[in-house]
């Protein structure tokens, strides 16, 4: 059973029951000129995760372990977008890479560098959390997954919401600091701090090289 250095305590997991979760590495959030940048955000804060995440994904695949990707987005007719969310955002409007956060559009899909391999699961989610209104819990249950290695964007929004959901469901979550990103350095810092606080109230935090070395 691999054990790696982590905050607040070492993290152990079983290779037979671990999955790598890659959250919302979508063009709309990460590409220069895209939706994320159009809101005034600095996409380089997210793009620094691409290289370590690509390295981790290839090591993880080489070990024959499962990867699950998620994408935030809505149906083209917006029937699954709550009115309160629609009113606050630009969802469904025309952006640089197609209609913003709409399934099937170029901007909604995962960036080329981290494209899912054949056979890897892609979970489409209408919210910030990857469990609500998706088949994720069923997929994890069928594969006997107990430990989730969590990566992706953004740290304090979709990563945090998903880790909170997973933690309440009893999954042991390891969040990789160099593979999660926020547009805001302050939220990156405090987001990771909140996960490991109070004895690891939502899970553990580590860096990807330690994980790669362990598998």
């Amino acid at each position: 059973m691999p054990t790696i250095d982590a905050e607040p305590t070492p993290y152990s997991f079983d290779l037979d029951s671990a999955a790598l979760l890659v959250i919302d590495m979508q063009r709309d959030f990460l590409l220069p000129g895209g939706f994320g940048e159009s809101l005034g955000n600095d996409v380089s804060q997210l793009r620094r995760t691409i290289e370590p995440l690509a390295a981790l994904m290839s090591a993880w695949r080489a070990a024959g372990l499962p990867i699950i990707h998620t994408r935030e987005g809505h149906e083209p007719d917006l029937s699954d977008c709550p009115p309160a969310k629609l009113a606050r955002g630009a969802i469904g409007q025309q952006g640089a890479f197609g209609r913003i956060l709409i399934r099937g559009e170029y901007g909604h899909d995962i960036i080329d560098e981290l494209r899912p391999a054949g056979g890897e699961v892609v979970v489409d989610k209408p919210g910030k959390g990857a469990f609500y209104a998706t088949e994720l819990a069923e997929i994890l249950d069928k594969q006997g997954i107990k430990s989730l290695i969590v990566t992706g964007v953004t740290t304090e929004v979709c990563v945090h919401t998903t880790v909170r959901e997973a933690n309440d469901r009893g999954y042991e979550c390891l969040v990789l600091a160099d593979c999660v990103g926020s547009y805001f350095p302050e939220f990156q810092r405090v987001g990771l701090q909140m996960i490991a606080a109070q004895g690891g109230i939502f899970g553990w935090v580590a860096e990807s090289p330690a994980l790669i070395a362990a598998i």
Partner: protein
Amino acid sequence: MTARIGPVKANPYLWPYDGSVPADRTALVCIDWQTDFCGPGGYVDAMGYDIALTRAGLPATARLLAHCRELGMLVIHTREGHDPDLSDLPANKRWRSAQIGAEIGGPGPCGRILVRGEPGWEIVPEVAPAPGEVIVDKPGKGAFYATNLDLVLRTRGITHLILTGITTDVCVHTTMREANDRGYECLILSDCTGATDPDNHAAALHMVTMQGGVFGCVSTSDDVIAATEV
């Protein structure tokens, strides 16, 4: 009932997004005001934390509760806790609580820690539930997972939530995120929440306001009361 709430002065927009909301479509949610978290002699107190931080929101919440009761609004209280046989306690949650010296199910200063029916698990008297108010017992940080909260809210026709409770960054935030994904329009009140770490309280409120209100809005109890039209 003809009372309406809104527009409430809030950050980052005037809440709610749809201008104002009838009081009978709005619920006041009071999260985990339990003795173990904020009562004198509870386990947070016994562990040496300053409970003034988790108690800070009690007076304002009590005032807002009285206001909402007068309007006839739906009031929902939540309690975090587990069955006495701990059958609903995930193994890692138990392990981690033991690591910090407060093992769930173990003996605490006010009975078994976070076990349903124990004195420490009860809601403190300042904001105790009135007869007829809904109480949701939850095994996790979020009030939606493994509870009937969503069903209760939909059955009562609730579309908007006003959130109070502790702690801001843990149970209140997890619940607000769950509610937001489910389409509820949420307002969290800075003077009716609190955390063991003031930095995390402030950061959690700040996070809500980003990206046009990614989880909803932040306001105060006075602003809610001021924006009520009877």
